[in-house]
């Protein structure tokens, strides 16, 4: 631990945004930090243009003149971490508020002032790091600059410098002065609610109430006592919000991406639009609205159909994804060309990133058609390999989720266009039983021909998907085979079943 944190992580470490589970009190102070007594918590500043993939930790190559200057000035010269991945300062401060951390950067450089424009900041705890929203940053040629940061991991940082007045404080000795400087918390909050986007511009995600929230108790009332009693129960408990369900972290992550998109493209309607769709009767309406309010979700569009099928207008509103607990409804949606998957309740849910949306897809019968799977099921593995080899250059046909991956890729490109490739809050994964050396090639060629890329492609060559997914921690994983869905769920990954293709004929019905 300690200062070795950064080095051991390597480039992959920067991609990992774990959830912060600490109540550390720390502040970061330049010049006064002692290497030996460095606490594990630290703040890392990464200069703009620093490419995690390309810059080898040990290469010594660093972007930005200012970094070297700062390093020289800092007095923290013993650790070779500094200046390579950015600047790291750490130190103890018992006086600091648990949710705030003050950062002091020694910008006393007589040759040039340090410009921290475009730097990204991460708060590091152990193996996890989380980007931090900088509420204000300015560099002054002399003295220290004070920046107050919020440690709320949901507030994702924008790549821009905010120009607020920072009182120049003295060189760290007078603690009192910076403790008093309270930034207006409201500045960081979103006080006005933005307008929901038009369906044709947005990526529409329809979620049913039974997967967004946990409604098992109510389901039981319905099954045991009938619909009238069920509705009475719901109205009676109207002011009790439901607990989050399996799709909840996914929806929260979508909202995080929206916040980032709005920061970069304030006028654009190319956002995620989350629609709550339920076959519930309108009697449950007030309870659902109360629940949405309670969890502070940004859902303004919803349909409580009272039993009739919403697929008609979901299709008309160009729904890109439909998540439900009911396999029948999911099948109906799939047959209408809407990417859809069944979700299940699970007691085990590992923590996932709150700043980066991660979506994992199986290949065959999800992104691609089930043609290869048919061969495998009918004729076995050898025939499958032979078929794939012979058809290596023939593209696979598309599957139900190709469109959804396209929609995600389109949003990713919006981040890349603003220089946010490293810091992109959307990450996609292909997790397939195909093997990299052989059958996987066809999958990659197909994706490439479609102009689609996934950020990471994992070829498991038949190995179980659970452990790999546990490392990736996606918010959702789509697979057509219940075997894989269950395997993933056992290890705490939220997995959704896509009832498409030949695998449905062979799997046991749940």
């Amino acid at each position, binding site marked *: 631990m300690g200062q070795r944190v950064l080095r051991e992580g390597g480039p992959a470490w920067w991609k990992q945004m774990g959830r912060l589970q600490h109540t550390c009190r720390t502040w970061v102070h330049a010049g006064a930090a002692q290497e030996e007594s460095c606490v594990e918590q630290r703040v890392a500043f990464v200069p703009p243009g620093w490419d995690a993939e390309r810059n080898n930790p040990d290469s010594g190559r660093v972007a930005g003149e200012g970094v070297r200057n700062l390093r020289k000035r800092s007095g923290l010269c013993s650790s070779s971490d500094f200046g390579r991945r950015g600047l790291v300062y750490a130190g103890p401060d018992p006086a600091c508020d648990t949710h705030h951390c003050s950062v002091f950067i020694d910008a006393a450089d007589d040759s040039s002032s340090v410009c921290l424009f475009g730097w990204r900041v991460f708060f590091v705890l152990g193996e996890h790091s989380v980007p931090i929203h900088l509420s204000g940053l300015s560099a002054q040629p002399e003295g220290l600059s004070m920046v107050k940061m919020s440690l709320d991991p949901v507030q994702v940082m924008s790549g821009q410098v905010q120009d607020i007045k920072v009182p120049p404080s003295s060189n760290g000795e007078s603690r009192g002065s910076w403790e008093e400087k309270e930034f207006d918390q409201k500045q960081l909050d979103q006080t006005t*609610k933005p*307008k*929901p986007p*038009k*369906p044709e511009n947005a990526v529409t995600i329809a979620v049913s109430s039974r997967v967004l929230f946990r409604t098992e108790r109510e389901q039981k009332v319905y099954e045991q006592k009938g*619909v*009238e009693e069920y*509705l009475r129960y719901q109205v009676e408990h109207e002011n009790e919000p439901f607990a989050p369900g399996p799709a909840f972290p996914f929806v929260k992550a979508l909202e995080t991406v929206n916040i980032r998109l709005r920061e970069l493209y304030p006028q654009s309607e190319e956002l995620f639009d989350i629609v709550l769709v339920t076959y519930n*009767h*309108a*009697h449950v*309406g*007030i309870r659902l*609205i*109360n629940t*949405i*309010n309670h969890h502070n979700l940004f*859902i*303004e*569009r*919803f*349909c*409580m*159909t*009272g*039993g*009739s099928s*919403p697929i*008609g*207008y979901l*299709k*008309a*509103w160009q729904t890109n994804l439909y998540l439900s607990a009911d396999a029948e409804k999911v099948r109906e949606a799939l047959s209408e060309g809407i990417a859809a998957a069944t979700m299940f309740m699970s007691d085990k849910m590992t923590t996932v990133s709150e700043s980066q949306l991660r979506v994992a897809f199986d290949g065959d019968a999800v992104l691609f058609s089930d043609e290869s799977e048919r061969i495998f099921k009918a004729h076995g593995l050898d025939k499958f390999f032979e078929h794939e080899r012979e058809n290596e250059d023939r593209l696979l046909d598309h599957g139900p989720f190709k469109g959804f991956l396209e929609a995600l890729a389109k949003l990713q490109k919006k981040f890349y266009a603003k220089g946010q490739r490293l810091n992109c809050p959307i990450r996609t994964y292909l997790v397939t039983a195909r093997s990299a050396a052989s059958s996987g090639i066809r999958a990659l060629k197909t994706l490439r021909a479609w102009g689609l890329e996934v950020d990471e492609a994992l070829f498991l060559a038949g190995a179980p998907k659970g452990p790999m997914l546990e490392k990736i921690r996606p918010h959702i994983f789509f697979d057509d085979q219940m075997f894989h869905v269950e395997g993933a769920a056992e290890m705490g990954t939220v997995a959704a079943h896509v009832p498409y293709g030949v695998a449905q004929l062979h799997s046991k019905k749940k």
Partner: protein
Amino acid sequence: MVSVVLNTDVKQEDAGNAVVVAVTSRALFESGLEDDDAGVWKLSLAFPLLQAVQKVNDCLLEKNPAESLLLDVLLITTDSQHQKLSSLLISSTKHHGLGVGKFCFASEETFVDSLLENNVQLFLSTNKDEVQTASQKGVPSAMLEARKKDSSVSCQREDLRVWLDEDLISLRDSASEPGSRHSPQRFLAKLGEIRQRFSVSDSPLWISLVILHGSRENCGKRLKTLRSLGVSVDDVYCLAGAPSEPLLSVLQPHFRFNCCFMD
């Protein structure tokens, strides 16, 4: 001259408790097109509505043969041309066996007064101006919706499907009279009462609430307002600006009623 004629073929309802629904003659009949055999008019847009109203009444009476809270249909002419063709209207109605309780022969100038005199609680027309004029004078009114399954003479009886919304645009345009605010509420309360006669899953009346614009807060408030009036809707849609046509074609309401919610 305005006159009201009772339809002797149909049992007259208790004026006190019945909900009087007026439908214009032009909405019910395709005028000018005579059925060759009988010399009567062919049925038009409003026919499915009448069938649905009939179904509601039948179901109400099935539950309680002494039920007085029924829907009473009044056929009204709203222009002088039709006003003169009273006998043809009556004979066409009787020929088709329609459940029209009364006829009212009025003209453009007098029809609203007739509506008021006859305690009409819902006025349905295919003419937008008529609907607006009647609303302004305090009669809850709505446009009849075209049905997807077009046949005006469909044998299967559908449930009565009512779409409630607040069309803020037309609300702004119409300057309503002071007394008119209560009328929509009175109609809604009656509607709610009828709905209450049936259980959740087994009802010939289906009420949908559609919030076209505005937030879920808005929606929550409307649900509570309706609940306080005794109206429990069956389904609710908060569109937040999404186009309503796809929803319209799925729900297929007989008419869309502007609730004129007052905040």
